[in-house]
């Protein structure tokens, strides 16, 4: 522990960027998973005919 402040806006931007990126990825993951389970994709019966 140095007791000297070395960070500035770079550290702030890094912390905000990591937070925003992770939350965005999680939101997209949830949205994508919801689409898969919403029943709007190709029904199994039609897929079997291909």
């Amino acid at each position, binding site marked *: 522990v*140095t007791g000297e402040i070395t960070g*500035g806006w770079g550290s702030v931007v890094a912390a905000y960027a990591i937070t925003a990126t992770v939350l965005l990825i999680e939101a997209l993951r949830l949205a994508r998973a919801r689409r898969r389970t919403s029943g709007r994709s190709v029904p199994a019966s039609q897929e079997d005919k291909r």
Partner: protein
Amino acid sequence: VADPVSFAPASGSTRRGFPWALAFGLVGLALLLAGAYVGLFVAPSERYMGDVQRIMYVHVPSAWTSLLAFTAAFGFAIAALWSGRDKWDAALVGAVEVGVILNALVLAQGMIWGKATWGVWWDWDVRLTTTLIMLLLFTGVLALRGFIDDARRRVTWSAIAVIVSYVDVPLVYLCVRWWRSLHQVQSTPETVHPLMVLPLRLSAFGMIFLAVWMITRRAQIELERGRREAVAPPERLARLQPTSPGRSAS
């Protein structure tokens, strides 16, 4: 697309979802953006740490919300054990997953802040260590679920694992008061400038609202996955069989 199990028709309630959840998510997003704006451009710099203190406006809300998510998971675990209903198990999964994500964010933000102010990325300080243990414990809960095929046993063991893991949560919050710690003790609004309290509150409520949306979404997905498992075991088992005897012999 060829997975028939994935496209079993969703039940009406699951397809409709929870209309209020989306509103929570949108309000949360708006509050987070407002909190970020006020925290980055309006709030004054801290006297000793300078601009790097602005990390507080994402770090503290993430920490509060992760503790709240784990507390919710604890409540869902008791409800799941008490009633055995799938909806509590699904809510438990959502709360634990969101809590783990926020917990990991807290550690990442804290390491950046620690490097700037303490001069080190990590210290085996009691607050940091208990927070890391919390992450490992609840990640273990999610891993445990993957090892249990039987749905009933999965509900029971997940709930027990969450209840055991939750022992660490009050420890994380109170350890800075009980032991000497490099990490500061919780502040109060009386000791913080009003322009610093505002972005903190905006971001905290934003994070909580967003977490409610994420937990609800994840719970819906888990419920639907459970229904598919219940109605389509033969297809799932069929996919595990070899496609032809000739191929397996060659």
